[in-house]
């Protein structure tokens, strides 16, 4: 069944006609996503031909949804315009907005997350690779050809670590992989994805990837202890990161004693999560766990 995104999801792309938007719309289509439209107010009424498919461009999210019945928007809108674009998507009451854009000011993110929450629009991101339900659909920039459909659910703050784990576990396969993003203020959290995977009959085991900064992993650990019955395997990046330095992601910073990788790992282990020391070891833990419970997984 997958979470948040299935083969039936109709996808539109805000910013489709830009260079990044075009490149990734092509990749999404190739991965099986049902991309039904793009949004660009200046190019409303035009069409774009991509690999033999014709995708119409609409003037607004509202119009695109009315015409196509789309339920997912993927945003490749540059940072200065991202807040307006997300606000528009939320005003149209789209159920899911996937914000790929990196470098959005935090004040904008705070404003549009609250705005979207009040309108029941789920946001994934910003500064994220999006999500993929292999064999079904792909909303974002996650490469589709490094894994296959299966029964592992994956949630991660990091794009490339998502790819690394997908590749390591390519022989087992995934229900859905969700990149929630490395910014300090994000929409969908580890906990939201854990809850959805717990409820998904097609997910047998969950891989959760975290990194330094904030306390989202600690909160997720408490959630796992109280609410998750499926096995969870964890990985945390950033043990060697020095205090006070931002390690690539805007949200990846150790401030004083808070946000350290060691604290996150300890919290997850206390909640019964097996945590790998490297991505490869983490994949190995998944394989071992699935072997222990032969009823699970393909």
């Amino acid at each position: 069944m997958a979470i948040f995104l299935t083969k039936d999801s109709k996808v539109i792309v805000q910013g489709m006609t830009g260079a990044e938007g075009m490149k990734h719309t092509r990749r999404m289509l190739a991965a099986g996503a049902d991309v039904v439209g793009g949004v660009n107010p200046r190019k409303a009424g035009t069409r774009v031909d991509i690999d033999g498919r014709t995708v119409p461009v609409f003037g607004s999210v509202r119009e695109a949804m009315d015409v196509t019945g789309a339920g997912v928007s993927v945003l490749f809108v540059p940072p200065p315009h991202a807040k307006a674009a997300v606000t528009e998507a939320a005003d149209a009451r789209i159920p899911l907005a996937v914000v790929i854009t990196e470098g959005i000011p935090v004040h904008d993110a705070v404003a549009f997350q609250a705005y979207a929450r009040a309108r029941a629009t789920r946001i994934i991101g910003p500064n994220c690779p999006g999500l993929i339900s292999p064999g079904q659909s792909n909303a974002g920039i996650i490469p589709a050809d490094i894994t296959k459909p299966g029964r592992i659910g994956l949630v991660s703050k990091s794009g490339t670590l998502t790819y690394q784990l997908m590749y390591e576990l390519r022989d087992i396969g995934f229900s859905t992989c969700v990149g929630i993003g490395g910014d300090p203020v994000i929409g969908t959290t580890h906990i939201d994805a854990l809850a959805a995977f717990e409820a998904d009959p097609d997910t047998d085991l969950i891989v959760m990837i975290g990194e330094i900064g904030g306390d989202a992993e600690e909160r997720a650990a408490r959630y796992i202890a109280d609410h998750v019955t499926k096995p969870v395997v964890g990985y945390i990046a950033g043990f060697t990161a020095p205090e006070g330095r931002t390690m690539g992601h805007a949200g990846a910073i150790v401030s004083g004693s808070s946000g350290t990788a060691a604290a996150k790992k300890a919290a997850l282990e206390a909640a019964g999560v097996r945590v790998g020391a490297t991505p490869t070891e983490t994949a190995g833990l998944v394989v071992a766990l699935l072997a222990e419970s032969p009823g699970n997984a393909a």
Partner: protein
Amino acid sequence: MDLYEHQARELLQENGVLVPRAEVVDTAEAARAAAERLGGRVVIKAQVKTGGRGKAGGVKLADDPAAAEQTARRILGMDIKGHTVHRVMVAEPVEVEREMYLGFTLDRAAGRFAAIASAEGGMEIEEVAARRPEAVARIAIDPAEGVTEAKAAEIAVAGGLPRETAGTIRRLWTVLTAHDALLVEVNPLVVTRDGAIVALDGKVTLDDNARFRQPSWDDSGDRARDPLEARAEAAGLGYVKLDGQVGVIGNGAGLVMSTLDVVAGCGARPADFLDIGGGASAQVMADGLSLVLDDPEVRSVLVNVFGGITACDAVADGIVRALDTVPLTKPLVVRLDGNNAARGRAILGQLAHPLVHQADTMDGAAARAAELAA
């Protein structure tokens, strides 16, 4: 980007918050002259971007201009938690009746900004919060409403501050929103003998992502920065200098952080964090590799790329291009997987450079690079 105290003070003052009269100087003689202008008796404060200056001896009272000169001479050049003092602030002393704490900070879990207020100021708020959590009030701010008069009054009452601080509370909120700040903190906020509300010290952190709409930001300043970091910034590379011997280059913040950890797990110390980002071109790879090779501390270099959008053949081309201009004198271990990995590996295979090693896995590559740096 963290501001120096004197920069934070300027922002507060511009927005109507009362601050003590002060000047910023970089010599002891200038400190003496500043003390003369400020009335003789002054406080000398080290300007460094770190806390705990007082404990480290970086904040001292001087009774007269001669003492101000002597004190400034002692503080200038001092090292405070790895930060060298290049400038001091010479400030007029304030007759303090009571000290409080007031700040706005991002509550990541709630995805909102929150006011933090406490009647106990003058020390580290984390200590107060740990010792007596009930003494620190934390009030979430609705981003659509901001800090209204009623909200400011609510914050003051919750923190046990006098109602007269409400105006200052609203002005600090303006500093936060108008300047795209992630943190605005005044500690201590004081009531003076004459009943004025004055910010004795201020800390402001600006959001680097908002640079495009904050053209007035000037961070050229006197940042005593690592020259390699300055070069990386000019080249648009995500780079942090560390203190080990294995140069690390990868794509994506998470994968690079993870690579540092795996190198450390192999018993070596990473020399840097360098993220060439998503969809990196051959040129970006070449710039990154040249930079890391120029670090004299580096004894081996590890390139760990999982191609998602990034094409591994472009990464390999970048390595070849970099080696055209920078002669390779240190071993280079490369692990390529994902998008166009076979082509990338073939390009490096053809290069047949004796110092270029390829590895099949991330762990294997890290172990090899660690071994070669030993």
